[in-house]
């Protein structure tokens, strides 16, 4: 190990700080979204444990929806795998931009891979915003506390959703499903740091339906990210040059 030995009670407090921050709103919001995975798994005859395992180990709502949707439609596993793979490209830029906050000297590759598993829209957006305020050497325990709270509560929710399949009236089901897009929206708004960020958000939002028409539902988000993100990046550079 490198650096001074970690104070165990400080590490424990950082984990609990992460758990508390997650439970204060983000974790229940993601969990409400993943509640809906239960009935999807139930509909294709998958066992309860497989539904819960999908939340624990895939840990990506849209990928899980695509997976069970594909099984329901009778698609081949290879076709489903490709569609899921394309839908999960977003994790590449998310992990890259979250990593520097979590990098410590002497960290092993398995530790980084373990941390990367917790990257989702919510943990990325909230982590990027909250972690700079956490002391650098306590960010890993903080993020693990935050991530585990989100994953475990969501896995529990998926199980509950499975058992309660078909028992929630449509408005309740719609309201539960709406919690994650609403939370993503306020989370992105809370994390926006300047005008260029706002441009990236606006372009990403407005370009999606156009990209969907032009290049279809598999690659649309990739196009939106590359195009909207690059435009915002160039604008940011131009603005900084003028300010300098």
């Amino acid at each position, binding site marked *: 190990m490198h650096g001074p030995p970690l104070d165990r009670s400080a590490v424990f407090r950082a984990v609990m700080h992460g758990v508390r921050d997650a439970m204060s709103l983000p974790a229940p919001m993601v969990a409400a979204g993943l509640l*809906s995975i239960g009935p999807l798994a139930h509909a294709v005859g*998958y066992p309860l444990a497989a539904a819960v*395992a999908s939340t624990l*180990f895939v*840990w*990506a709502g*849209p*990928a899980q929806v695509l*997976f069970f949707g*594909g*099984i329901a439609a009778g698609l081949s*596993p290879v076709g*489903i*795998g490709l569609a*899921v*793979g394309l839908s999960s490209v977003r994790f*590449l*830029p*998310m*992990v*890259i931009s979250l990593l*520097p906050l979590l990098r410590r000297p002497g960290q092993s*590759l398995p530790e980084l*891979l373990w941390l*990367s598993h917790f*990257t989702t*829209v919510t943990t990325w957006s909230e982590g990027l915003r909250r972690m700079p305020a956490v002391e650098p050497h306590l960010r890993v325990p903080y993020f693990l506390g935050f991530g585990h709270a989100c994953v475990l509560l969501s896995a529990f929710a998926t199980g509950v959703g499975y058992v309660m399949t078909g028992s929630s009236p449509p*408005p309740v*089901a*719609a309201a539960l*499903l*709406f919690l*994650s*897009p*609403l939370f*993503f929206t*306020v989370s*992105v*708004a809370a994390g926006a740091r300047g005008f*260029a*960020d706002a441009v*990236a958000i606006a372009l*990403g*939002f407005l*370009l*999606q*339906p156009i*990209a*969907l028409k032009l290049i279809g*539902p598999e690659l*649309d*988000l990739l196009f939106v*990210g*590359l*195009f909207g*993100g690059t435009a*915002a*990046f160039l604008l*940011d*550079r131009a603005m900084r040059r003028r300010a300098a």
Partner: protein
Amino acid sequence: MIPPGFEPYLILFFAAVLPTAFWRVAGVVVGRRISETSAVFEWVRFVATALLAGVVAKLLFDPTGALALVPWYGRFGGAAAALAGFFLGGRRQIVGVLAGEAVLLLSYFVR
């Protein structure tokens, strides 16, 4: 031979767990080589931000499940109300979420 009852887990692993983990692993491998202060890193953060907004748009424009039963103005009005609630309510996320849900449910019952 695959023991009976194990097939769902096998399909889940190869068609969902692996294809998703691939990009997270790729993020770690590529990210380890990128300096935090480099332009590439800045660019990647903007790409991720635009992508995330695209994810929200996708959920609103092309909803799945019970959300598809809500009229479009309920979904878009709800998202707009969430933003308004967040900024007007002292940048509190919960205020935004509650405002969004109120608009969604209103559109469901009042149409």
